[in-house]
């Protein structure tokens, strides 16, 4: 059972305008995300990448436009249904956002005990598996404050995987990781895509990672407050006719 990007459409961003009050962050963002693809949101610092992610996971309401998952608008449904849709998402926040009063196992167990009928033994087994994926076997009983920043990041990913989500969101997954861990994370991302058919939406400006894992991407531009390109990042690097996009993807070397 191997999944590559399929033709089935998983999510659509439709004419999205993001704003804080009267301050517009980004206008008319639109994109189509297919099932089991790695979709990258890229752009310079402060261009609204994380803001777009927060719109996609239902934390912020769009000023205009809509976001649809499998044809269903996340903002067009009532609170209960939105909560149900969000349950299919896993999110790795930029600062890992582990609950500091709980051990790593308890962090992963919380969503499992809330949303499944599994016994504590089964939940423990699942938590152990998720921690093993991210290379944290043996640290089950640790509190987030007792492990390093990079380990917290990986534990955050293990928690995002808790409910075997359909769609995984990553906010700058490789920031704060050493190069080896960052590449391992890329491998894990691809493995999840291939083995479980997970759709991945990744905010990143780590070029190596973008070219390794990206199937599709959008490029957000701070100056014009619009998206400037969409497509496979490798193709954009080689063939884009937009200087700003090529400049970004070649670290300004070309």
């Amino acid at each position, binding site marked *: *059972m*191997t999944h590559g990007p399929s033709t089935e459409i998983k999510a659509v961003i439709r004419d999205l305008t993001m704003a804080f009050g009267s301050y517009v962050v980004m206008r008319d963002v639109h994109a189509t995300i297919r099932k089991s693809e790695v979709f990258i949101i890229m752009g310079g610092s402060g261009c609204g990448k994380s803001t777009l992610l927060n719109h996609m996971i239902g934390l912020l309401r769009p000023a205009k436009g809509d976001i649809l998952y499998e044809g269903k608008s996340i903002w067009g449904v009532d609170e209960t249904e939105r909560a149900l849709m969000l349950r299919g998402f896993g999110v790795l926040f930029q600062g890992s956002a582990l609950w*500091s*009063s709980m051990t790593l196992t308890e962090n992963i167990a919380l969503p*499992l005990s809330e949303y*499944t*009928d*599994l*016994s504590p033994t*089964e939940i423990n*087994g*699942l938590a*152990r*598996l*998720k921690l*093993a*994926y991210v*290379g*944290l*076997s*043996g*640290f089950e*009983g*640790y*509190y*987030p*404050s007792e492990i390093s920043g990079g380990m917290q990041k990986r534990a955050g990913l293990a928690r995002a*995987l808790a*409910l*075997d989500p359909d769609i995984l969101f990553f906010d700058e997954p490789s920031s704060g990781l050493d190069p080896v861990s960052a590449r*391992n994370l890329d*491998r*894990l991302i691809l*493995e999840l895509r*291939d*083995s*479980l058919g997970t759709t991945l939406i990744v905010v990143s400006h780590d070029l190596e990672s973008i070219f390794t894992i990206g199937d599709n991407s959008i490029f957000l531009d701070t100056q014009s407050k619009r998206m400037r390109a969409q497509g496979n990042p490798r193709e954009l690097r080689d063939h884009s006719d937009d200087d700003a996009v090529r400049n970004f993807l070649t670290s300004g070397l070309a």
Partner: protein
Amino acid sequence: MTEPVQSEPFLADRVDDDLIITLQSDWLIGTGVPDTARIKRDLKDSSAPRRMVFKDALGKWDSSLLTFLMNCQDLAAEQGIEFEDANLPDGARRLLTLARTVPPNKDAGKTEGTSGWVTRIGESVLSGWSGTWRFVEFLGETVLSLGRLMRGRAQLQWSQVGLIIQQSGPSALGIVALINFLVGMILAFVGAVQLIQFGAGIFVADLVAIATVREMGAIMTAIIISGRTGAAFAAELGTMTVNQEVDALKTFGISSVDFLVLPRVLALILMMPLLTVFADVIAIGGGMMVSVLALGLNPTEYLQRSIDSISLNGFLLGVFKGGLFGALVGTAGCYYGIQSGRDASAVGQATTSAVVAGITSIIVADGLLAVLTNILGI
């Protein structure tokens, strides 16, 4: 070979030296993770198998399957038999490999030995002692920092002091007024019930004035400020510790006591006496309202008696207490904030400790002062 029975997620068969585990139907977390106890029994058999082999008759699967496989792999390793993963679905095999890429960290296992009660008592005494020591050290640093301030060498920003004064003084006027007005009313009521019986209703004014100015004004205000401002100090400095802002100050060679603690303690030492005077006036007003409306006393007479009954020493004592309590509350808030651990729950603990220590020290200090003033005859 047994025919697959759909109700069972897996079947275990012995064929020669192999234990063949047939995985069938759907494995989804919604339906639970099958138990490996049966496999464990089979492995512990007298004629234990040498190999664990799988047969794939799976429908849909997710982490439930992988959890089961990982448990099986652990069992196989425990019994020293071979774990043959060749027939597993590709994805599952790759994920299993991934889960095993980093070997479990053996040293990471936590040793939580249960210690006897003698050990526990000893440990708590030791930690109490080192806590006291740390507090004395902190107090010393604060006093040194005050000394630097006197000589104009403290690294503090006056704009910061102004801002903290604004937040801890004027912004607290509302709540200080409300509470002290009510306390004044309560004192008047309680006093009136007794004094009316002797036809001495007018002495309510003496009672309220003396109690407020000597004790209640300063104490009530200090308790409010401890819950309001002391807690805010602890939470703010605690969060700064979590965000490494305190570390950042240290690397620039800026004393965290000068820069963070001094302005806060100073602000409270300056503001608390003023708030106390304000509280005194409001509480006497509250007492007057009860006396005039409920007891029918003459307002002018009431005010006159109040003023007559307050001695200068009593008034100054109250104001001095205000300043002292301010120092105690500010020091407790800053101390627990700076000492805070580096996560959210530690900040919560720091705030709790700050308020508890603040209020306790207020009451203890007030008790000591009561004895002292009694001896000195103030």
